[in-house]
C-alpha cells in the first residue's frame, strides 16, 4: 500500500452535501431485498429446535421419528457439525452456540434442526424430535453468578488475570484492570466523595429484521449463502471453518440489512442452514422468529457497577475508581474489559483505577451492541459525576468542563490523547439553547458525556469507470447506515465529478478481497479511505490515457475538477479532457479504466459526545415522557450530514428505550418471560420527541478528509443523561436501568417513606 492517510485540510465540493439516499426508493417501495426476500428453486424451509431449559445435560436426542415424516429432507444435531475448530476456543464457543454439544446452556439454545418442504412439515418434525434432558441448576443474575455457591456453568473455566492462578473453576472467566496513579492517595486529597452501586438489565439490539439466510451447498462442495449480516466476509470465514470448507468455495452475498447494531456480527443460523443444505442436497432458507431472535441471539450484557469518585472543593477530581461486572452469557467474553477501558475516558485524571469481571450466566451469548459495554459504564460514572458536581456545588456542565480530557491527557485506559472533541462538545452543550429552556413541574434536565474508540480494519475496494463515464464503486463493507451514499460522495470528490455519476454497491465475497465487517463505526471511515486510494489509482490511469490521446508525456498531465489538463505553455492549445471523454476513448487507449485499493485502515480517531435530555415524571405512576433531547457529537468530518444526524438520532432513540423500558425478564425457571415486542418494549415514534443534533467537526489527523466513525458513540451517553434527568425530576437518585415506571415509583415511594 502506498497511500498517505494524513489529513490534508482540503476544501470540499461533494463531501458535506446532502444528496438523496440511493437506497431510499427501493426501501420505501418494498423493492429492496432483505434477508428473507431471497428465494432459490427447490428451496426447503429450515427450523431449529431450542432448549426450553436454562441449563441441562442432553442425555440423548432421538430424531428417528422426525426423519420418517414425509416431507422432511434433513435433520441435524451437533453430530452433523463436528468440531473442526482446531483448538480455537472462541470459534468452539461459536460452534457450541450454533448447536448445543452435550449441554444446553440457556433457554433458547439450539439442540437440533430440520429442513422440510414447507414450514408446517418442519414444525411438525420439530415436535417429533425427542430430547432427553437432565436438568441442572442455573443462574441468570450477574451478581448471583459470582457467588461461590452459584451453579458452575463450565467447570473448565478458571479465572484469568489473577495474580495467583486459581485452583477452583469459576463463573468469572477473566479479571482485567486499567488505570494509573494512586487512587488511595487521590481520595485522601478529596473534599467530597461520591460512592454508589448501579445495575443495568440485559437488552437486545432490537433490529427490526430478524436473522435470515438462504444456503445452498452443491454436490461438488461449492456453496452460496445469501444472508443479512454486518460482515459477509467474516461470515464466510466462520462458516467455512465450522463446516470444513475452503473459503473460496463459499460465496456469501449480503442482503439489505434491517438493523444490526452489532447483533449481526456473529453467526448463529448460517452454519446450521449450510449443514442442513449439505445434508438435504437442496437450498435451505432459515429465518428466525422474533421469539428466537430474543431467546437465542444478540443481547448485550447485564451489569453491576460500583463507582467511587472524589473531588476537591474547587471541582477538580482527585481520584476515580470503578468495579464493573458484566454478564457474557455462557461463553467467555471481554465485555467488562471494554467497560473498564471506557468508563472514565472522558476525564483528565491523575489517579484512576478500573477493574472488570467477565461473568458466565445461563443467558444467550452476549453480542456487541453499538459501542459495546460503554453505555453501562457511562451510566454509572456519569450518574456519580452529576451527584459529585452537586456535592461540590458546581453546575454539572462546568464540573465536566473543568475535568474534561484534552489533547495530551493520559487517557484512563492508557495512551495519551491526540486532538479530541470532549471539551468542544461540552462547550457546545453549555451554550446550546436547550440548556436554558425553562422546565415545568415534575420535569428534570440531565446531561452526560460519552466516549467510544472507533476502529478501522482490513478493507478492499474496486472503482470501475464505464465506457460512458459513469463510475461503479464496489465495496466490501456492508451498508448499515448510509455508506453507499457517503462513499459515492467521496468517489465524486476525488474524481471531481457529480455524485449522480457514481453508483456504489456492496460486492459479494467472490468479487472483492477480504473486508472486515462493518463494526466499530468503521464503515465510512475505512471504506472512504480505500475509495480515495482507488480513485487516486484510477486518476493515475486516466492521466496516462489522456497523455496517449494527446500524444504527450503523462508527466505533463494533471487532474483537476474531473478533467485531464495539459500543463505548460507548450500544450497551451490543448483543451481539457473530461473523465467521460477519456472513458469513451478507453477501448482504443488500453482498455477498461479502473482503480483498486486494498489497505488496513488504522488510526481511527476516538469520538466523544454530550447529550442533554428533559424528562417529565408522573409522581403518581412513575411514568415518564421525554420532552426534549439534544445530541452534540464530534464527527471529524460529516461526509453526508443527514446520515450523520440519523446516526446521532438512532443512538439516542435506542438509548432512550434502554434507559426507560427495555429489559430481559427471566423467571425463576431461567426462562425468558418477554421474548416479543409486545412485552419487550422498544420506543415507537410516539414515545420520542424530535431529537435535535449538532455536528462538530474536529478533524481526525489520520484520515485524508478528517473522518471519524459516528455510528456508535451516540448510544453511550443516553442512559446516564436520562438517569440524571429522571433523578432531577423525581428528586431521587435512580441507580437501576431500565427506569421503568414501577422502579421509578418504588424509588419515589421509598423516598417519601424516608
Amino acid at each position, binding site marked *: 500500500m502506498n497511500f498517505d492517510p494524513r489529513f490534508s485540510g482540503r476544501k470540499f465540493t461533494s463531501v458535506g452535501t446532502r444528496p438523496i439516499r440511493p437506497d431510499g426508493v427501493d426501501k420505501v417501495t418494498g423493492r429492496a431485498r432483505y434477508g428473507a426476500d431471497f428465494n432459490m428453486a427447490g428451496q426447503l424451509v429450515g427450523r431449529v429446535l431450542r432448549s426450553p431449559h436454562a441449563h441441562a445435560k442432553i442425555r440423548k436426542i432421538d430424531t428417528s421419528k422426525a426423519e420418517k415424516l414425509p416431507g422432511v429432507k434433513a435433520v441435524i444435531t451437533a453430530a452433523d457439525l463436528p468440531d473442526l475448530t482446531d483448538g480455537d476456543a472462541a470459534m468452539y464457543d461459536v460452534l457450541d452456540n450454533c448447536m448445543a454439544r452435550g449441554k444446553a446452556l440457556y433457554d433458547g439454545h439450539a439442540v437440533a434442526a430440520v429442513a422440510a418442504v414447507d414450514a408446517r412439515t418442519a414444525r411438525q418434525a420439530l415436535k417429533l424430535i425427542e430430547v432427553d434432558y437432565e436438568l441442572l441448576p442455573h443462574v441468570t443474575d450477574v451478581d448471583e453468578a459470582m457467588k461461590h455457591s452459584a451453579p458452575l456453568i463450565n467447570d473448565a473455566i478458571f479465572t484469568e488475570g489473577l495474580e495467583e492462578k486459581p485452583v477452583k473453576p469459576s463463573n468469572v472467566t477473566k479479571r482485567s484492570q486499567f488505570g494509573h496513579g494512586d487512587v488511595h492517595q487521590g481520595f485522601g486529597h478529596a473534599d467530597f466523595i461520591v460512592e454508589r452501586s448501579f445495575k443495568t438489565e440485559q437488552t437486545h439490539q432490537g433490529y427490526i429484521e430478524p436473522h435470515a439466510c438462504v444456503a445452498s451447498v452443491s454436490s461438488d462442495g461449492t456453496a452460496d449463502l445469501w444472508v443479512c449480516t454486518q460482515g459477509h466476509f467474516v461470515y464466510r470465514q466462520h462458516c467455512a471453518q465450522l463446516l470444513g470448507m475452503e473459503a473460496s468455495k463459499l460465496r456469501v452475498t449480503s442482503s439489505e440489512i434491517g438493523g444490526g447494531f452489532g447483533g449481526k456480527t456473529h453467526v448463529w443460523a448460517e452454519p446450521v442452514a449450510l449443514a442442513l443444505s449439505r445434508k438435504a442436497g437442496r437450498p435451505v432458507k432459515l429465518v428466525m422468529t422474533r421469539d428466537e431472535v430474543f431467546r437465542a441471539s444478540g443481547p448485550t450484557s447485564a451489569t453491576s457497577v460500583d463507582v467511587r469518585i472524589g473531588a476537591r472543593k474547587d471541582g477538580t477530581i482527585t481520584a476515580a475508581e470503578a468495579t464493573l461486572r458484566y454478564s457474557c452469557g455462557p461463553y467467555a467474553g471481554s465485555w467488562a474489559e471494554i467497560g473498564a477501558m471506557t468508563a472514565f475516558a472522558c476525564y483528565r485524571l491523575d489517579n484512576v483505577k478500573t477493574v472488570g469481571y467477565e461473568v458466565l450466566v445461563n443467558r444467550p451469548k452476549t453480542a456487541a451492541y453499538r459501542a459495546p459495554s460503554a453505555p453501562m459504564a457511562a451510566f454509572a460514572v456519569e450518574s456519580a459525576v452529576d451527584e459529585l458536581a452537586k456535592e461540590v456545588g458546581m453546575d454539572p456542565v462546568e464540573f465536566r468542563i473543568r475535568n474534561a480530557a484534552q489533547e495530551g491527557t493520559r487517557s484512563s485506559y492508557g495512551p*495519551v490523547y491526540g486532538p479530541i472533541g470532549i471539551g468542544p462538545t461540552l462547550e457546545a452543550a453549555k451554550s446550546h439553547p436547550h440548556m436554558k429552556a425553562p422546565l415545568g413541574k415534575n420535569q428534570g434536565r440531565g446531561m452526560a458525556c460519552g466516549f467510544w474508540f472507533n476502529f*478501522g480494519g482490513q478493507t478492499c475496494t474496486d472503482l470501475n469507470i464505464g465506457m460512458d463515464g459513469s463510475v461503479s464503486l464496489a465495496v466490501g463493507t456492508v451498508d448499515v447506515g448510509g455508506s453507499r451514499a457517503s462513499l459515492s460522495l467521496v468517489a465524486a470528490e476525488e474524481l471531481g465529478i457529480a455524485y449522480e455519476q457514481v453508483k456504489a454497491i456492496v460486492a459479494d465475497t467472490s468479487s472483492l478481497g477480504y473486508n472486515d465487517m462493518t*463494526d466499530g463505526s468503521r464503515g465510512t471511515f475505512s471504506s472512504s479511505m480505500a475509495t480515495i486510494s482507488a480513485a487516486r489509482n484510477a486518476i493515475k490511469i486516466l492521466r496516462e490515457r489522456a497523455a496517449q490521446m494527446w500524444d504527450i508525456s503523462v508527466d505533463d498531465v494533471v487532474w483537476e475538477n474531473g478533467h485531464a489538463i495539459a500543463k505548460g505553455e507548450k500544450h497551451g492549445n490543448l483543451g481539457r479532457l473530461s473523465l467521460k471523454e477519456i472513458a469513451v476513448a478507453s477501448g482504443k487507449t488500453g482498455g477498461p479504466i479502473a482503480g483498486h485499493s486494498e489497505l488496513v485502515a*488504522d488510526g481511527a480517531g476516538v469520538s466523544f459526545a454530550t447529550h442533554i435530555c428533559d424528562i417529565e415524571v408522573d409522581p403518581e405512576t412513575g411514568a415518564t415522557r421525554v420532552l426534549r433531547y439534544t445530541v452534540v457529537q464530534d464527527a471529524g468530518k460529516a461526509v453526508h450530514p443527514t446520515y450523520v444526524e440519523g446516526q446521532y438520532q438512532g443512538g439516542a432513540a435506542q438509548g432512550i428505550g434502554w434507559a426507560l423500558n427495555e429489559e430481559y425478564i427471566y423467571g425463576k425457571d431461567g426462562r425468558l418471560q418477554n421474548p416479543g415486542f409486545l412485552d419487550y418494549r422498544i420506543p415507537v415514534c410516539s414515545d420520542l420527541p424530535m431529537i435535535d443534533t449538532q455536528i462538530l467537526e474536529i478533524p481526525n489527523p489520520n484520515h485524508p478528509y478528517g473522518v471519524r466513525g459516528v455510528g456508535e458513540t451516540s448510544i453511550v451517553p443516553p442512559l446516564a443523561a436520562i438517569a440524571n434527568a429522571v433523578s432531577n425530576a423525581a428528586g431521587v437518585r435512580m441507580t437501576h436501568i431500565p427506569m421503568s415506571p414501577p422502579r421509578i415509583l418504588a424509588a419515589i415511594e421509598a423516598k417519601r417513606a424516608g
Partner: protein
Amino acid sequence: MVEVTLWGSLGAAAGGKNKVEIEAKDIRELFRKLAEQYPGLEPLIDRGIAVAIDGTIYRDTWSKELPEGSEIFLLPRLAGG
C-alpha cells in the same frame, strides 16, 4: 530501543511488569520479541492485541514503525458494534 507499557492485566502475563524495553523497529518485530522474551504473552498476542503509538491505536498495521521516543502502549483488541 522503545519503552512499551502493558495494560494492567497484560502485565501479569509478563512476570508482573507493566513496562518493558524492547529493541524493535515496527509492530511485527515488537510482537515477535515480546513473545520471545515473555512467553506468557504469546497466547494473548495470538488472540489479538492493539498497539497505541502516541495515542493512535493500530490493530492490524504490523508494518507500522515505532519511532524512537514515542509512547507505545499495548491494549486489548476491541470488539465493536
